């Protein structure tokens, strides 16, 4: 749905981010209305990272994602209707309703899946990068992970191995300011991107709310990886505008951030900011933005509505996954 093409035009960036935003806003409403079976972790505010990164990837490049994975799924070309159906637990879901929000995957699009284990995607992406290297096809393995996940030891293990083996691995740390309810500085010492340096893995920090900056940094990393130059770590600084998980205010008794802080970041919203930039550059007029937003919203709402009408999976479908059964 969102094009993955290094020559992505600015309007595609905007469109991509809007697709994610509108899908997430719908899920937020669905959650409020009680129509979601399980928990959802929304990506609102971080869209520039997924869109900027995936704009530089081809369909055969691999990504691994996180518990906050809808944005990555959509940006890598996942189908919104199949995603909604999955989050709604329907048979037509991209995983047949077996996985849900934390496991949306579409292998045909190179999406090895969202992941409920913080840091779980790091090993998987390393393996995908190894496969790409063995194939000699110039593919890359890309791992999205959070600032909180940077505390998992497997990150260091992957940096070490990727450096030794010159794997085409791109590690995208989305530093959104929080690890659940802990501000990053309370659980992460130092700057995450600097952790790559001792291994000899190039790394940089980018403004994660600037979709073009993310795309440019990714382009460099992809080029290096495809040319056999090995791994890169990119730390994208962004901000999670919604809660860690929808509905958190219902059970959290302490505040972990201020309204002022949220307001501050809302002014830096990657979508509004990019739209304003395009307007300033004369590449978009205000009505153009509104029209695009309405168009995307319509498509997304239709996808969600139709998914919501799909049937639940049959209980018998479980049998298909029993080992030794066939």
């Amino acid at each position, binding site marked *: 749905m969102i094009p993955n093409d290094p020559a992505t035009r600015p309007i595609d960036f905007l469109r991509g981010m809007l697709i994610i935003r509108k899908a997430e806003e719908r899920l937020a409403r669905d959650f409020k209305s009680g129509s979601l079976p399980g*928990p959802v972790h929304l990506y609102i505010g971080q869209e520039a990272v997924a869109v900027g990164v995936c704009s530089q990837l081809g369909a055969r490049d691999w990504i691994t994602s996180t518990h906050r994975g809808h944005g990555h799924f959509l940006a890598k070309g996942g189908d919104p209707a199949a995603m909604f159906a999955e989050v709604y637990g329907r048979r037509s879901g991209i995983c047949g309703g077996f996985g849900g929000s*934390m496991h949306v995957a579409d292998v045909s699009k190179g999406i090895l899946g969202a992941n409920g284990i913080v840091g779980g995607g790091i090993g998987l992406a390393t393996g995908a990068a190894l496969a790409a290297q063995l194939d000699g096809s110039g593919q890359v393995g890309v791992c999205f992970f959070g600032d909180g996940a940077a505390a998992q030891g497997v990150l260091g293990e992957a940096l070490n191995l990727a450096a030794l083996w010159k794997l085409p691995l791109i590690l995208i740390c989305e530093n959104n300011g929080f690890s659940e309810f802990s501000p990053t500085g309370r*659980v992460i010492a130092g700057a995450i991107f600097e952790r790559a340096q001792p291994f000899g893995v190039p790394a940089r920090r980018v403004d994660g709310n600037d979709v073009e900056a993310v795309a440019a940094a990714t382009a460099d990393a992809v080029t290096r990886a495809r040319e056999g130059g090995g791994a890169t770590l990119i730390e994208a600084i962004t901000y999670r505008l919604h809660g860690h998980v929808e509905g958190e205010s219902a059970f959290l*008794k*302490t505040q972990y951030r201020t309204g002022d802080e949220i307001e501050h970041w809302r002014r830096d919203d990657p979508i509004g900011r990019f739209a304003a930039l395009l307007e300033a550059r004369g590449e978009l007029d205000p009505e153009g933005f509104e029209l695009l937003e309405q168009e995307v919203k319509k498509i997304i709402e239709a996808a969600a509505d139709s998914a919501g009408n799909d049937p*639940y*999976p049959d209980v018998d479908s*479980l049998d298909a996954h029993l080992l030794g059964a066939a």
Partner: protein
Amino acid sequence: MTRKRMIHAINDALAEEMERDERVILIGEDVGASIFGDTRGLLDRFGPARVRDTPISEALLGGMAVGAAAAGYRVVCHLMYANFVYTAFDAIANQAARLRLMTNGQIRLPVTFIASGGGGRSNAGQHSDYPHTTVAGLGGIYVATPATASDAKGLLKTAIRTDDPVFFLQPTSRGGEMGEVPDGDHTVPLGKARIVREGGSVTIVAIGAMLRAANKAAEALSEEGIDVEIVDPRTCFPLDENLILDSVRKTGRLVVVDEARRAGSMAGPIAALVAEKVFDSLKAPIVPVTTRDLAIAYAPPLEQAMIPGPTDIIEAVRRISKESVT
């Protein structure tokens, strides 16, 4: 007696033990904010030296709990969802479970690993395991599986005072359930089962979250004239063998209900125990009622079908009760 939610009973246990012994400390991810509510308020009350929000580093947490315990503290290590026990498993299996024997008792480890397990909330495949036997099989760790608010409090208080590691597995879907909790310093010994309901015709051993379903089943069955005895082992390792055996000696019939997958359920160890020790008392097959050997699926109809409920238990009991009439 005071009526309380299980999660509050657990909170009380933690607070009382921290009050009682200043060498009790609590470590874990966001134990300050407390996603389940079980550790809520403890940071304010006991301060950040003793209540420590940690980074997402389960491998380290497990080892650190062991090290701090070896060096003289009573450590409560909160691992959040029980699936993250796997992330910390090296320290649990290779260190915590063994150091006592390997050092000939020089090292004793007062560590309580707490986690919340089981399905029922569409948390899907990576947040729904109930890995009590995974830990029980290690041999060196007590495994407590409370099913009521009262036992949760009493077992946890005992766990914290115990000089060996304890894995305390609370049922995710039952935290909000109310129960009567004895006032005062209420403790429940490890390794002691409880007869929840007396009866003469069939013994149901129900583990943790399954007790509620077993109680419902027993109600329904009593209307059919089947007089069920329910045993809650409360501690899955080591088992209170005598109480279970006595019950089966009396009833001659046994159903084991466990939310774990069949291959990793208590149906195994308990069937082995009974089929060895009171074989002559057995009048009918031992029937396991467990989850199938699959990861828990997300879609509510699938999840409901997988996890045992009263109907499954009723069927199992009927199956072996009929034969009793002959």
